[in-house]
């Protein structure tokens, strides 16, 4: 795949619409929203959640409604569905859809307009279907409640038709939701939403709980259905990348106002509003890595660095369950080996979707889980049998930043305690004054004002502040290695980049190595020196980010990279959807090497011999599933990619 591919098919109608750039007045739009205002009442104040919002949606148009949490985007959509609940109240405005004003409906008319005229595809596909009803029943009950009387045979045909149009087999109608995967559930939701051919579909972050590969499939389904029906689509979301992939026009909302309303290309090329620009800049895009990678070296050079590695995975694997009552065992991480030296700090990204074993790997590095096979070695010694003083040193030298910046703080104490605790228990500072001086210093290092942070309880800080404070806490200990487990997945987009910048500072300014655990290839591309891709517990691809992400070699990585929603309307998902699923279990592809971090697929590392890279013995079966393809594939420094 090229870094800057030519414009691909499937963006044609987007271009035509762009070319027209319709002004609302010229053609009669499908939906015309005028001066929509919504207030929320609390005990002490009124929040004007949406303040006089006006926009149009043309038939067949895909409009992206973006903004961060609290911007009023979901509230706007709910108002169109007439689903604003007290203490919220629509204080004024007009929403003309065809001949009806959605906001003027009352009583039964509201219910009847839903599904027939406006459909809603909900957030959280995992939980949007009634768990005790079959899919078929959930398609038909909405139809029946709109007064459509159907015979048995007609019902069957209808269910089969709508399921087929979202690419699901007819047999799904008899299944219960818990028997479907996340992607299938969300497609079933789309099937339900289109049963009565509505003229407008509102999709509220329809792929928020799905991995990128499934996200791509679901979005493809949604847009193809919408194109076929010719209806309007309002796509609500916060992911600029996804919007660039899907939307024709974008409406950027901020604080209940429309900041910008523009065709998607113009918005991405010349954002008029500073907030739009900020949102666009907060998403990493391809081809402009923000930092130079550490120099790649040939394999034989690494032999010279003969110091004892800081941390080594020696054929470490983890299996959960099994035993007498535990049910069938589940491989969380198949045996893998690597070593990390402390002399050259590196950022190593471990990328995988949920269930890939990346968090298990992180917890084993931290010593929170013990491996089922192999051993984790800290400065040459098995982590499981460290003498007390070495254990203390390990604790100080290997630190972590976790995903949930709220859960990482004990709600009972002020945040000061979380910062001071490690200083006290490792004896790094004595006396209140010294401790506070160190804490203030650490706050400053991550761009926080100590005066605004210290002395507060965790719930009084914002998510971004809390997460930066966790980075500051880790810094206080002057560790050698920080494990960062999805550090930005729970903070708002605008803060992501600054926290990631904090992480890069860890390496460049403080000389700390980072193991960056993430599901997001795009951020890994920007911050990491080396990337490992895990899939269902197995390493599938490893190499420098330019290699792995710009030229993915393994079928799974190719699926993954192909599904990244790059924030660039000219780099849309390829129309072709090569289903590589069957070959995802192919042997791993390992390319390139860097100083400071050495990877081997499996087998033992002979650390004492001083040579971390002994010739791999005939590979112990690396992937349990492919017993037959044990071949020598993991030779360092050379590409053994079978798919080139």
């Amino acid at each position, binding site marked *: 795949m090229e870094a800057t591919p030519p414009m691909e098919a499937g963006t044609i109608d987007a271009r035509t619409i762009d070319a027209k750039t319709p002004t609302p007045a010229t053609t009669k739009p499908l939906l015309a929203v005028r001066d929509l205002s919504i207030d929320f009442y609390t005990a002490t104040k009124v929040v004007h959640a949406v303040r006089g919002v006006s926009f149009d949606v043309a038939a067949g148009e895909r409009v992206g409604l973006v903004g961060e949490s609290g911007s009023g985007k979901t509230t706007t959509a709910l108002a169109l569905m007439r689903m604003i609940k007290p203490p919220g109240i629509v204080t004024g405005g007009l929403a003309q859809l065809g001949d009806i004003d959605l906001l003027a409906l009352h009583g039964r008319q509201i219910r009847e307009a839903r599904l027939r005229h406006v459909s809603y595809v909900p957030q959280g596909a995992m939980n949007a279907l*009634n768990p005790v009803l079959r899919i078929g029943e959930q398609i038909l009950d909405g139809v029946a409640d709109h007064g459509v009387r159907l015979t048995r045979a007609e019902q069957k045909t209808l269910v089969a038709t709508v399921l087929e149009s979202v690419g699901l087999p007819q047999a799904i109608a008899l299944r*219960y939701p818990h*028997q479907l995967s996340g992607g299938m559930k969300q497609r079933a939701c789309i099937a339900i939403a289109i049963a009565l051919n509505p003229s407008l579909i509102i999709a509220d972050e329809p792929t928020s709980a799905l991995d990128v590969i499934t996200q791509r499939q679901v979005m493809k389904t949604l847009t193809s259905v919408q194109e076929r029906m010719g209806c309007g689509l309002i796509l609500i979301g916060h992911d600029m990348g996804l919007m660039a992939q899907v939307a024709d026009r974008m409406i950027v909302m901020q604080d209940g106002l429309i900041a910008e309303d523009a065709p998607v290309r113009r918005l991405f090329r010349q954002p008029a509003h500073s907030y739009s620009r900020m949102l666009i800049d907060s998403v990493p895009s391809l081809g402009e890595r923000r930092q130079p990678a550490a120099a790649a070296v040939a394999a034989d050079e690494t032999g010279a660095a003969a110091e004892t590695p800081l941390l080594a995975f020696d054929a470490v694997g983890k299996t959960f369950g099994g035993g007498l009552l535990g049910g069938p065992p589940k491989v969380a991480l198949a045996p893998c080996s690597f070593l990390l030296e402390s002399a050259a700090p590196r950022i190593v990204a471990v990328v995988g979707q949920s269930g890939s074993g990346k968090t298990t790997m992180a917890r084993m590095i931290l010593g929170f889980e013990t491996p089922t096979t192999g051993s984790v070695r800290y400065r040459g010694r098995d982590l499981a049998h460290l003498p007390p003083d070495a254990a203390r040193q390990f604790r100080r030298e290997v630190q972590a930043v976790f995903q949930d910046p709220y859960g990482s703080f004990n709600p009972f104490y002020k945040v000061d305690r979380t910062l001071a605790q490690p200083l006290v228990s490792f004896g790094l500072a004595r006396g209140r004054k010294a401790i506070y001086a160190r804490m203030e210093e650490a706050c400053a290092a991550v761009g926080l004002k100590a005066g605004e942070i210290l002395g507060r309880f965790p719930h009084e800080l914002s998510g971004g502040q809390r997460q930066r404070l966790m980075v500051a806490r880790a810094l206080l200990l002057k560790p050698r290695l920080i494990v960062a487990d999805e550090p930005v997945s729970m903070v708002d987009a605008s803060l992501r980049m600054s926290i990631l910048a904090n992480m890069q500072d860890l390496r460049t300014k403080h000389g700390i190595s980072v193991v960056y655990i993430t599901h997001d290839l795009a951020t890994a591309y920007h911050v990491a020196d080396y990337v490992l891709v895990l899939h269902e517990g197995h390493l599938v691809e490893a190499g420098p980010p330019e290699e792995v992400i710009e030229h993915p070699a393994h079928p799974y990585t190719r699926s993954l990279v192909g599904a990244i929603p790059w924030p660039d309307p000219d780099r849309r998902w390829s129309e072709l959807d090569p289903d590589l699923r069957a070959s995802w279990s192919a042997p791993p592809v390992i390319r390139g090497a860097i100083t400071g971090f050495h990877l081997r697929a499996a087998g033992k590392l002979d650390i004492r011999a001083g040579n971390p890279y002994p010739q791999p013995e005939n590979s112990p079966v690396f992937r349990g599933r492919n017993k037959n393809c044990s071949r020598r594939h993991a030779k360092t420094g050379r590409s053994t990619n079978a798919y080139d």
Partner: protein
Amino acid sequence: MPLRLIVRRLVMVLAVVWAAGTINFFIPRIAPKNPIAEKLTQMAGTSGVDPTKIKEMAEAFNVKFGLDKPLWQQYLTYLHDVFTLDFGQSITQYPVRVSTLIGGAMPWTIGLMATTTLIAFLLGTLLGAAAAWRRDSRILQVLSPLMMVFSAIPFYLIGLVLIYFFAAKLGWFPLSGGYGIISIPDWSWEFAVEVLYHSILPALSIIIASIGTWAIGMRGMMVTVEGEDYMTFAEAKGLRPGRLFLRYGMRNAVLPQITALALYFGQIVTGAVLVEIVFAYPGVGTLLLDSIKLYDFPTIYGIVFILTLTVALSMLVVDLIYPLLDPRVRVEA
């Protein structure tokens, strides 16, 4: 229903029965004195009882409990008896077997408990669901907290209040008993009406006190369910309010209620026993009270055991029914 689950539940029931039996066995033996021997001596001391009969009883009990044999052998014999529901003979109504006494009282108790539990469960669940659903309804918003407060009060205290007002003051209902003093139990229509009439106040006290328990649980669950994504989606589908309430809301919210039902059986039995005592209703509770007063230990053991067994079996029945209501628990391919 997964076989593993059924097996686990059966093991649980057996364990409960075994635990109940074992506690029953050891409590009197840990006690400083032998309650049965004491009771017999006491009876011998009072006039009017034939000394030969007492001797006969003492021997019968010695054989029954094998008091001459080693403890482990006594225990095994005891467990065998318990699993065959043989509790020996009553002391006070010798030589009537305990199982006969309990068998006579059990239908009254089961009838009262089963009906009231069912009614209270249905009414309470509906009330709770409606209170969560219609937050604008004045009546519901007053009625449901009231019912919830009632749920804090033990059944028998409500029974006492009801007796005071409706039996003693107003005289609408009989003060006590399961049927009229002069009636002879038979299968006639008149007797059935009489039984029904006598059971109204006891039943009412159980129902009033337990509706709230179910209403609290259901209201909480319903509020949770209303926050679920599938309710939002269902509303966006434009479903009729009735369908939304029944098939989406209640249908899901009621599932934990069913589980709660199984856990509440113990409390219901306890409560019902005391209600029977307050109303002198001819069920197991009143039999228990009489046995306590007269130190009829074989009967006390028997009742405790049978009621425990009833609770365990009811829980088993609920556990077996549950998968029919929740597709997620049904057997997976």
